[in-house]
């Protein structure tokens, strides 16, 4: 396999050193541990400060999908993928509707998991259990996507052949590719698990800070060298207007509705990521959260826009690619073959790709572990368990979840399709969207009853998942209407909530 590697010993040493630094931070996180409690393990005790919070929010929000999926989508859809900037901005706009109040309540009542808020607000076991299950399934869905992306990233970076625009089809290369995928999943998962088990949220947030810095530098480098080597976005637009004009055209009427749908789905769903809610809790003060969110409002312009422009410039190069997501490796191979400086920059980019993947996966893994341990085990199985026992169990849960998910990722190797990252990402949003009344409405509508939220969530989930599964039976409601299934689900959800409340109000009046 080493013979196939496009990187020399210096590059491998740099990447190895970077991965070791993550383990070191995990060990430091363990040293900084103040007590053996869930709050210390899952929220770093009294919380984290401004710099670490900004970078952990950034590194968690922008995943490997931003690098591979977004550049790939821009390569395929052209400026039609400009919607990605708007939906990433919308996440911060939707935070305005609930983050300040949720943070205060979390500090006052010592919330650990997102479900703690539901329990505090509604005191309803069925609603809390349903909320936990929805968030655990959505997060597990996301974790699986990240693990597959880890393996795919290592595979593509090692064996992608730019002259063929694909991974070569001969038996030897296919074997190497498979081995690279499995090695990528297992190695990166082990490192992630090690630092997370050692230092909990503290280690995850600290490594996120390092990963966030590398990711940000990676995006800057990427756009800089792409413009330097392949020309400006203006040059690409001029070229595309001759060779593929539809990539620079605005969307039609149905496409505009789809943009609105994307903004709602990712804007609300992304704001309600359980790992994002965990970070709202973990801010050491309201002021820290306030300043961090203000900075995050500008990140789409520095990250998503860059990914879009790279994809557009790549599209103008007319690479003959087997998959659109190969555009980034194609550009990287092109740059690294050109000069020593280009080679060095690509090595930093590889570290950025690993940072993007691991920083998102570790956060998702930690919140799954927290929810299973606190919301399910401590609530329904052993309510007498001590904090130390639960913390120890949480580490075992992390191990079990990651073994299961990594095993699934490895066994899915031969069943991947072109859009697996995007498809997996979509399903979690369809589900998370149905939590909106329980979190956002509930903070502002004092009389909102648990039963209305529970009934709305059930109906919303049935509509969203039912319609989504229709895609498998050639009934693609999204393609027919241009609106995501989750938005239809949320609409049904809200109708039930409002209908229930007005019926209850009328009944009480009589």
């Amino acid at each position, binding site marked *: 396999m080493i013979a196939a590697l496009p990187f020399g010993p210096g590059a491998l040493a740099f990447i190895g050193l970077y991965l070791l630094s993550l383990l070191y931070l995990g060990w430091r996180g363990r040293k900084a541990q103040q007590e053996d409690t869930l709050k210390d393990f899952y929220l770093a005790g009294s919380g984290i400060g401004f710099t670490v919070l900004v970078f952990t929010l950034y590194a968690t929000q922008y995943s490997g999908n931003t690098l591979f999926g977004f550049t790939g989508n821009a390569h395929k859809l052209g*400026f039609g993928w400009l919607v990605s900037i708007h939906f990433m*901005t919308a996440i911060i706009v939707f935070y305005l509707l609930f983050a300040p109040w949720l943070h205060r309540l979390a500090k006052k009542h010592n919330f650990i998991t997102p479900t703690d808020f539901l329990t505090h607000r509604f005191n309803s076991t069925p609603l809390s259990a349903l909320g936990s299950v929805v968030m655990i399934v959505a997060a597990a869905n996301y974790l699986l996507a990240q693990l597959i992306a880890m393996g795919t990233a290592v595979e593509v970076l090692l064996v992608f052949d730019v002259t063929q625009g694909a991974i070569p089809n001969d038996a030897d290369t296919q074997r190497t590719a498979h081995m690279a995928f499995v090695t990528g999943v297992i190695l990166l998962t082990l490192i992630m698990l090690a630092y997370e088990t050692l230092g909990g949220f503290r280690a995850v947030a600290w490594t996120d800070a390092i990963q966030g810095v590398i990711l940000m530098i990676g995006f800057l480098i990427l756009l800089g060298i792409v413009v330097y080597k392949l020309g400006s976005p203006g040059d690409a637009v001029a070229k595309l207007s001759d060779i593929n004009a539809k990539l620079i055209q*605005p969307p039609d009427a149905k496409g505009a509705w789809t943009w609105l749908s994307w903004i709602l789905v990712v804007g609300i769903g992304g704001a309600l990521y359980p790992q994002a809610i965990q970070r709202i809790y973990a801010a050491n003060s309201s002021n820290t959260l306030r*300043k961090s969110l203000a900075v995050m*409002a500008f990140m789409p312009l520095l990250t998503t*826009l860059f990914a879009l422009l790279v994809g557009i410039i790549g599209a103008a190069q007319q690479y003959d690619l087997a998959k659109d997501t190969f555009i980034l490796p194609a550009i990287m191979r092109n740059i690294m073959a050109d000069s020593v400086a280009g080679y060095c920059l690509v090595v930093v980019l590889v570290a950025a790709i690993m940072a993007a993947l691991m920083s998102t996966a570790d956060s998702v893994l930690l919140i799954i572990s927290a929810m299973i341990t606190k919301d399910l085990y401590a609530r329904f199985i052993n309510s007498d368990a001590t904090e130390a026992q639960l913390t120890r169990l949480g580490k075992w849960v992390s191990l079990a979840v990651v073994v299961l998910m990594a095993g699934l990722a490895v066994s899915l190797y031969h069943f991947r399709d072109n859009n697996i990252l995007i498809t997996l990402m979509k399903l979690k949003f369809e589900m998370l969207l149905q939590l909106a009344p329980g979190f956002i409405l509930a903070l502002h509508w004092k009389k909102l009853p648990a039963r209305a939220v529970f009934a709305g969530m059930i109906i919303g989930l049935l509509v969203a998942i039912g319609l989504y599964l229709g895609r498998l039976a050639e009934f693609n409601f999204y393609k027919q209407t241009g609106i995501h299934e989750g938005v239809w689900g949320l609409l049904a959800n809200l109708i039930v909530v409002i209908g229930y409340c007005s019926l209850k109000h009328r009944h009480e009046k009589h």
Partner: protein
Amino acid sequence: MKPRWPIVVTYLLLFAIAIPWYWKWLGDAATQPLLGLPRWVTVSILASACISLLTAWRILKHWPKEDKE
């Protein structure tokens, strides 16, 4: 951070500008270059920048101070 209608209307207006639904009535103007990009793209990115500025301003200036349960 109570919902203030002028702010809500400004957000709706900015998102309405950012989503390029209206360019079909403006013919070729949509793809004419503006700052090196198609005009509709530049307008949409500028609208996004305004949304970011408005959001940051709102967060920094109107972060709620009272508890609300």
